[in-house]
Every structure is written in C-alpha cells, then in structure tokens.
C-alpha cells in the first residue's frame, strides 16, 4: 500500500474513467435529476455515501463469506441484495432520526438501489483489487477509497451538468432536442473535455 496508488485511484476514478462520462454508470439518474443544482447535489451526496458504504460491505462479504466457501459466482446476487437492504435501512434510519435530512434526500435515496454506479463500484473493486481470488495488499483501503472517489466523480459531473442545464432553461432550444437529447449532447461535449485527462500518469 502506498500513497501514489491512492493518487492514481483518485485521478482515474474522478477524471479519466469518470463514472458517468466514461463508464456510463448511473446515466439514468444523471439525465433525469440534473435539471436543477439543489436536487442534483442531494442525489450526488446520497450516491457518494452509498458507494462508500457499499464498497465496505461488499468487500467484507466477498473476502470473508464468498471466497472461503468458494461462492464467488454468487457475487452479483449477494451484492445487489446487500445494497438494496442497506439503502432501505439507511432510509428508515434517516426518516426516524434526521427528518430534515430525509426531506433533503427525499425520493432520491430509494432510487439509488437501481443506480448502476453503486453495483458498478462493487464489481470494479472485486475486479481490480482481487487477483486470482486473493485480496492484494491494502485491497480494503483501495476499495473504500475508490468508493469515495467514484462518488466524487459522480458529484462533479452532476454539478457541472446541472449548472449548464439551469442556464439552458433560458435559451431557445429546437423542440426535438428538448430534455434528454440535448442532455446527452452536452454530456458528450463534457466527456470530450474529460478525455484530456487520458494518459495522465504518475
């Protein structure tokens, strides 16, 4: 485990392989909720929290439950179940103990269950930080850090997009391109800009 590895994970998760603009994970929520900045921020924070926690949970499950019993092929089922249960649990806890926060997150929390980004991070962690069924050194810390960074990348793309779309509200847009099509074209241009980070090495 060394510091430069963390830096590499950070740069690649936030910029080079940005979860939305390069890996296309969580695209549905990205175009649906990025119309205004405030809900976009709420959604991003919720996603960041869940990706981090699900990285921790799925790593523990894979390392201590699935590998010892040779059940690696059940990873998809177990991960999605754990994520769904966890999201449900968080929703109930927040509703009970922090009503203002619950109102802030609102309907966005349950939506996260079917957000590809969350399951995507879990699968990516297993792909990247386990070699031949064995955890590499520092794999747990890398996984958690990657969870945070993917959440950060999501937040960055979401905030940029919602800022642009708020301004577009005032523009005269061809009728056929309204909403989804234009959102994709903007995302394409953003993705082009993010490609500039390609080949960034340490």
């Amino acid at each position, binding site marked *: 485990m060394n510091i430069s590895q963390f830096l590499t994970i950070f740069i690649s998760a936030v910029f080079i392989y940005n979860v939305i603009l390069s890996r296309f994970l969580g695209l549905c929520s990205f175009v649906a909720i990025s119309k205004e900045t405030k809900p976009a921020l709420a959604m991003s924070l919720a996603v960041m929290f869940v990706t981090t926690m699900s990285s921790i949970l799925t790593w523990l499950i894979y390392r201590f439950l699935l590998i010892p019993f040779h059940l690696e092929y059940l990873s998809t089922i177990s991960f999605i179940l754990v994520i769904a249960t966890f999201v449900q649990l968080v929703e109930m806890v927040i509703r009970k103990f922090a009503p203002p926060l619950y109102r802030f997150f609102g309907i966005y929390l349950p939506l996260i269950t079917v957000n590809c980004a969350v399951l995507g991070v879990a*699968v990516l962690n297993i792909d990247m930080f386990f070699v031949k069924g064995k955890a590499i050194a520092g794999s747990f810390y890398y996984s958690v850090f990657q969870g945070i960074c993917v959440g950060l990348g999501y937040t960055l793309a979401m905030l940029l997009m919602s800022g642009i779309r708020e301004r577009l509200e005032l523009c005269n847009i061809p009728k056929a391109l309204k909403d989804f099509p234009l959102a994709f074209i903007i995302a394409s241009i953003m993705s082009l800009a993010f490609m500039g980070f390609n080949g960034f090495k340490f």
Partner: protein
Amino acid sequence: MIKEFLKGLVKENPTFVLVLGLCPTLAVSVSVSNGIGMGVAATFVLLGSNTIISLIKNIIPDKIRIPCYIVVIATFVTIAEMMMKAYAPLLDRALGIYVPLIVVNCIVLGRAEAFACKNSVGKSFFDALGMGIGFTLALVLISSLREYLGTGKILGFTLAKGFEPAFIFGMPSGALLVIGLLLGFFNLLKNRES
C-alpha cells in the same frame, strides 16, 4: 399476444421511446458483435424474469416485491454470466462489468414492475420477447453507426473505400453524441406525426 410482442419493437421501444437501460447501451455499443451479445444476454434475462415473476406474482407480498424481483433477476443474470464465461469467453471479456450490471438495467425491473406483475404468463413472455428484441435492435442500430463511423468497418467488412474513420465515435464521447442525436431524430419523427 402478437400485440404485446410488436409494441416493444417500435412503438414502445425501450431505448428510444421509454429511454430505459442506457448505461449498457452506451458502454457496449463500440462494435456490432458486442451489441448483439449484450442484446441476447438481456433478452434471455428479460424472458426468464418476466415469466417467473408473472408465475409467482400472487405469492409475493406487495411490500417487499422489489427485493423479490431483484432476486429473480439476479439469478438469471448469474446464469447468463456463467454461460457466457463458459461458451463465449471473448465476448465476456469484451462486455466486462456490464454483464453483472444487467441486474440494475432499468428495462428488466421496469417490465417486471409495469407488466409481468399484472399480466398472465403468456402475455408476459411475449412482452419480454418484444422488449428484448427491441433493445437488441436499438443496440444494433447504435453500435453499427458507431462502429462504422469509428473504424470504417461493420463486423469486419469495409463498406466504402476512402472513408476516413473518426476515432472519436469509438470513445465514450461519441456514444453520448450518437444517442443524443438519435433521440432527437426520433423526437422529430414523433412531433411530425402528431
């Protein structure tokens, strides 16, 4: 039955009309063969999950129906994943993490929630077949555009000589541009009709 089958192809095409399941669509549409592979895998999962869910719709308690659906879907995704690893390892490597991600493909869960839990087994089966084929067709359309513009070839065949491929269409940015323009185009057709 025929009506349920046909509606998924054009009128309620999951990609262009319902705008569902875009993550895998964009990610795997680099080449036509990947697109077809993804389409077949998703169709298999849709058929399995829609049939099973409409069979057990009366047993599932209403409050926990979503987790139940997810378990059924995840089972079929795991089967698809294992079959692909065994019989098409190259395709499996090309599709990468997007195979397990069929679980969270909105089309599959969407059809379970919107159709299979209310309709008979036969109808759900044909609905899934139509949606799956509609999804595959959309994938083929997007991926052939991207593969042709990005590499100048489709499935390894050169169509026109002297065509200078634009590398960008093989990149994520090209995928977003193609889907954006296609959605705009279909909107235009819809507006003309009405």
